[in-house]
Structures are given as C-alpha cells and as structure tokens.
C-alpha cells in the first residue's frame, strides 16, 4: 500500500505525504521519497497555505481584540479602579491612612480636609467627592456639599489655624467615625466595593464581609433575570419546536415561504417590533379592546410594563434563534428513522420520543443556549415594555452608566453577568456536552 506512494509524482500529493510524515514516525521509516529540492518546495507550499489562512482570519482576530477583548478587559478593570477621590484629595488621604480607626482622626487630617474642601469648592469639584462618598454612605453627599460651601467663605490663614474645629462645626456628621471610614474607602484607588455591592455585600468598620444593610436588590435582580430568561427560552421552545418540525418536513415551496416569515423579524427594526408590542398590549390597545369586545373581561388587563410583556415581546424577537438551529438539525434527520421505528411496532408518540427527539437534541440545546444567553443580557425590549416589573439586570447596568454615573458599579455588575453566563455554559458543557451543539 505504502509503496504505491512511490509512484505519485504529483507535488501536491507529496505535500500531503510530507505532513503525514511529520505526524507519523512509522511512515517515515518506510517512505523516503522527496528529493531535497522537492522538500523545499513542499515546505514553501505549506508555509504559503498557512499565511493565506492567517490573512483570512485576520479581520476576525482584529474585531475580537478591539471589540471584545479590550472592552471586557476595561470593564473588569473599571470594576476595581476608582481614581477620582484619590486624585482630588491625595494629601488628606495620605494622612487619613495613618488613622487607627478609633475615635475621629487627628486635627491634622481634619485641617487638611478643610483646606481641600475650600480648594475643591473654588474649582467646583466638590460634587465629585460628594457623589463618590455618597455611594459608600448614603446621605453623605449633602454633608460634603454644605461643608465645602462653608469652607469656601473662610480665609486661608484662619483655615490653616482652625480648620479642624471649623470642619467639626460645619456638620455634626464629621464627629461620626462612619463618615471617615467611608472617606477612606472612597479614597482607595483599587477596591472591591463595587463587586461587593453588586453581590449585595459590604464591609463593616472592621473590614468583615456582611450583607448590605442599606438595600439588597442585585441578587434578587439576577435571579429574576435568570427566571425571565428561562421562561423566554421555554416559550421559544414550545412555539419553535413544532414550527421547525413543520418547516423541515413541508414541501420546499411552503417551507421557503414560511422561512421568510420566520426571518422577517431580522429584517425589521428591533424598535419597530418592540413598539408594536406597546401598541398591542397597552391599556387601550388592540388585545384589550378585543378581549373586552368578546366579553372575556369587563375592564382592561394590565399587560404592558409587566414581566408578561417582557416575556412575550422577547419570545417574539428571539424565536428565530431557536428555530434556525432546530430547523437545520431536523432537516438532516432522515424521515426513514421515524418510519423504521413505526415499522418495528412503535406507536407514533413513542417513536417520536425515543427516536426523533434524541436526534434533535443538538439543535435543541444550541437554540436553547442561544436564546437563554441572549435574553439574560437583553436590554432594549425590557427597557421599553418591561416597566419596573419586567426590568432585567442589563437595564440596571444601563441605569448606572447613564443616570447615576456609577461606571464602577456598572462594570462590576457587567462582569458578574459575564461570569454567570460563562458558568452556565460550563455547567451545560459538563452535563450535556458543548460538542453536541449544532448551530447550522
């Protein structure tokens, strides 16, 4: 068998053999067939094909680097990194870090802070500290602002001499150790505060972890997000499976037409589709008018701005992601499997469960995973139709980026979301096997 290789004169075949040789010691001992010149040529050929392959995937790698790896790296970093306070009052923080934590810090620290406040008030920067401090200690914002206003009116010499006293008199809170802990915390350039907050945790004055006293909303929000994503996935499955089955078995003409209907959502704007749900579901909307006209209800149902509206609108939007992998897998399943099962005496339902369904699992799991992951991170639709009930984690992330300007917390929440999705994928791989996924 191997000897027949000796007669092959075609260079490209020799190249193939070359790579065989590289990978297989056993063959090398038997086949010695390339002259030096030919071997060089073959090596060049291999190099050229590697280069071509590299150029073809370059755009993908560039995109991946600039639109994926870099932003995610920045996000991870931002969750820990908060340089604002540290850059505004570096001297005071230096001194504050000497503080033992018992009683209020010494006059030196207080004076330095008073001087800083005056400078910041003049530079109109005091708001930044107020916001940063407020995140660690709700209510501290007004303390900072009013103190800064008062310090601004005091002249420099007086401030240097009596700064500590002036500060304590400016607001009673400055006599409370809590605000100093909060300030020291806010002054850390790198801190886990955002991550702890995203997990509804905080550190007490001794630095121990405890459940956050002020409010616990994020864990609940994560679990609600998972719950909604699960409902959406199930709804997509229940609607998508029979539809994909029909598509895969219908005559080509019908199937093509229906496929266009399935893909239609991809060709219309997401906003249009979402707003059409508002029109349908609102109090005086199409659905309510219809229900009332046929007498199912006497007063309109609250459907818009609920979990229900988020689920139904997202199911509509994500359905193609379920149908397409299912369809492609079902298309590849020979109808003779089902017939063979029937001919062997299986009832149609049993044949479906034992023979057909297991063969669609790759498409089913791919579709379910896609829909689930996309819906966990979905933003626009819950924002528009979800109201307060139907909000998901992404909406809160957006809120922290756009309204409360707390990018650090937004980054921490985003990172946790990413970790959540990765661990779900890991679990899936563990128990179902990622190699089972078939995307088309």
């Amino acid at each position, binding site marked *: 068998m191997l000897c027949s290789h000796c007669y092959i004169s075609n260079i490209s075949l020799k190249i193939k053999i070359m790579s065989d040789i590289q990978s297989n010691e056993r063959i090398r001992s038997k086949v010695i067939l390339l002259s030096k010149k030919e071997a060089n040529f073959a090596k060049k050929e291999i190099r050229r094909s590697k280069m071509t392959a590299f150029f073809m995937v370059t755009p993908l790698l560039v995109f991946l680097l600039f639109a994926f790896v870099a932003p995610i790296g920045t996000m991870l970093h931002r969750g820990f990194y908060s340089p604002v306070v540290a850059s505004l009052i570096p001297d005071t923080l230096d001194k504050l870090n000497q503080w033992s934590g018992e009683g209020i810090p010494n006059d030196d620290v207080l004076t330095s802070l008073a001087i800083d406040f005056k400078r910041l008030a003049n530079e109109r920067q005091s708001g930044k500290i107020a916001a940063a401090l407020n995140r660690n200690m709700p209510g501290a914002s007004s303390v900072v602002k009013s103190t800064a206003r008062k310090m601004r009116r005091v002249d420099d010499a007086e401030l240097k001499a009596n700064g500590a006293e002036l500060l304590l008199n400016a607001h009673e809170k400055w006599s409370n150790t809590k605000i100093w802990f909060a300030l020291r915390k806010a002054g850390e350039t790198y801190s886990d505060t955002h991550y702890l907050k995203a997990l509804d945790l905080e550190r007490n004055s001794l630095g121990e972890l405890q459940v956050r006293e002020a409010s616990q909303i994020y864990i609940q929000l994560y679990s609600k997000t998972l719950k909604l994503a699960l409902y959406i996935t199930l709804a997509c499955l229940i609607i998508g499976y029979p539809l994909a089955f029909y598509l895969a078995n219908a005559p080509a003409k019908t199937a093509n037409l229906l496929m266009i209907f399935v893909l239609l959502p991809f060709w219309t704007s997401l906003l249009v589709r979402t707003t059409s749900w508002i029109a349908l579901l609102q109090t005086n909307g199409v659905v309510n008018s219809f229900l009332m006209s046929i007498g199912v209800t006497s007063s309109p149902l609250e459907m818009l701005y609920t979990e229900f509206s988020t689920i139904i609108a997202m199911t509509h939007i994500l359905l193609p992601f379920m149908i397409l992998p299912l369809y492609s897998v079902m298309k590849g399943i020979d109808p003779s499997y089902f*017939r063979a099962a029937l*001919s*062997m*005496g*299986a009832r149609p339902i049993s044949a479906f469960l*034992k023979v057909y369904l297991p063969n669609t699992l790759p498409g089913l799991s791919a579709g379910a995973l896609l829909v689930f992951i996309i819906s966990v991170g979905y933003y626009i639709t819950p924002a528009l139709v979800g109201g307060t009930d139907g909000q998901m984690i992404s909406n809160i992330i957006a809120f922290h980026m756009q309204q409360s300007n707390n990018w650090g917390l937004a980054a921490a929440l985003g990172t946790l979301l990413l970790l959540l999705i990765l661990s779900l994928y890991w679990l899936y791989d563990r128990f179902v096997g990622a190699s089972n996924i078939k995307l088309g």
Partner: protein
Amino acid sequence: MTTQGATDYLSFSNIQKSYDQKTLVVKDFSLNVAKGEFLTLLGPSGSGKTTVLMMIAGFESVTSGDILLDGKPITSTAPYKRNIGMVFQNYALFPHMSIAENLAYPLKVRKMPKDEIDAKVKEYLELIELEHMGGRKPAQLSGGQKQRVALARALIFNPSLVLMDEPLGALDKKLREQMQLEITRLHKKIGFTVIYVTHDQTEALTMSDRIAVFNDGVVQQCAAPDVLYEHPENSFVADFIGDNNFVNGTIVAEDGDFVTVKIANAEEEIATKRGDCGPIGSACRVSIRPEKLFIMPHEPACDNKINVTYAMRLYVGDFIQYYFKLPDGKDIVVKVLNDHEAPKFDEGQPIGLTSLKQHCTAYAAT
C-alpha cells in the same frame, strides 16, 4: 400469470396509486406472494417500486384496490400494527443507539422481558457475525456491516413480511455481491417472506424465487428468473432482463408457435418463436441474446443466417464482444468466449451470423 392457492399469503388486487389525484403512478398492480417466498420487484427508477412498498408498509395510502396479508385486509391498519419488517436503502439505523440497542428496539416496544431481549439480540448479532460489535454506534460500522444490522433489526421481531427497498444500492460492487449471498443465506435459514425491490437485474436474477418486472405502473411479467430470462413475454422484459439484440423486420409467414420474419432492408428471412407480435404483414422486433449468436463458419447447425458487416470488438476479459452492423444500420452484438481462437476481422468486412430458431423471439414493434 400466477396460480391461486399456495401463493396467496400476500395478495394485491388491482392496486392503484395517485399522488396528485391526476396521474396514476401505480396503474394496476395485481400479484400474489407465497409464504416464505423471495419475491423481487424489478423495474427502472421512477417506475413506482418504492410507492408499492410504502403502501404495503402503510406509509402511503392506497388510492384503490386491496392488499390482503394472510387473508386479512391491511390497507386501513396503522403502520405500527402491521408487523412488517422493513430494510431501508440508507439503513435507517438510529444513530444515537448502539447496535445492540438498535436490535433491541423492536423487542422493547413489544414489551418483551429483558433477559429474552438480551438473548435474542445476542442470537441475531451472532447470525450476522457482529457479536463483538454490539456496543458500537452505527457511525462506527462499515456500509456492509450497517446493512447486516438493518437486516437483523428487520427480522428480529419475526415479522410476517420483510420489505427491502434497494438495500444494497449504496454498496460497492464487491460488497453488494457478498451481501446478496448473505441475504440469500439468511432467507434460506430463517425462511421469512420477502418483497425485495431493486433496479439491478443481476441482483434480481441471483437472489429471487420469483421476479415481478414492473414498469409503467403495471406488472409486465412475474416468473422465476430462468423463465423470465429465457421466455420473456414482451419486448420490455426481453430488453430489461439481460443483454439483448433487436432486429427489425416484418412477419411474412406463420407456423404454429413459430413465425418467419423478413429482416428490414435485406432479403433474408429468419424463423423465430412467436412473442407478442401481430399477424402476417405487421412490423416486429426479433430479440436474439448476444451469446446465442454465432459467427460463421463456427457453428454449422443453424436455422437462421443474417448477413452483417464488422464494426469493432471490445475486449471484456472472460469474453469478447463483437459489434456488427445490420443491413438497416443498427448494431448487433455477439459475445464470444475468450479462447485462443477468437477471430479478428477488418472493419467493413461482410460476415454471416447464425442462430437457432428457438433462441429468437418476435415481439410487436414499439
């Protein structure tokens, strides 16, 4: 065509099938099959063979007519209640189940006790000589092995009837011949009733008890292989089964089972058996098999002589195929065994061919 009585285990009477309610794919299908018989449905692609099988198995409805299995009509029985085993061309082995699970499937749906299933699966794995491969998935088997498993799976539940739709179509020639023997062996050993569909006449000739030649939605002839080969009832069968030469001519005289035919564009007359040809004066086609023609002066004892001119020869191996031109310009082929005396000719050289009259049959011209 067939005798009633012993051969009516499975019987079709005037089956018709139309997919579009306009044209009939199966026009008039009537046939009786005996218990334990190996019956082959032979016909060109698109002649409706699969359609007939699907109607027996219950996957296609019957437009009109009746199918009786063991005396009971089955046309309105659900497929899963018919107890008919089926072997598909693409094997249809369940890819997510191992070989043993595949074999156990029909027994499981019949709720057979576990130990009986295991014993039966073992028995059938041995029967198809794959006893060590029960744990493998179908994807890990070769084509021939898959086919054997498909066969065993269709037999393991003792079906009243086994249907096979071109089961060897996807195999290469050597494997196909091996599987033909294998199926014949299993049939002899177990004695199941088979309806076997193929478009390969060699396969049909070597395996079947009887062959039903099917074309244009009608059974053209149903007979044992040798009868079919030696006494085809019409020119379609004569042409479809084995190689054949057709010589055009006109009938000039009749004599009982024999007629005399004047060859087109020539003066010679040849004596032939009567096929389905018309009366004196009508056009006909005379069929003569290539191995039943002899090149003069080799065969002295003959009834007919045809004058032709030499065109070319093909070296096939065990025999040599000579091509000659008839007076009307059509080809006529003669097969000569490859011994050392195989003659050589010049192109255009006039040659005489001879044959015996019982080897010639006159059919109606088409």
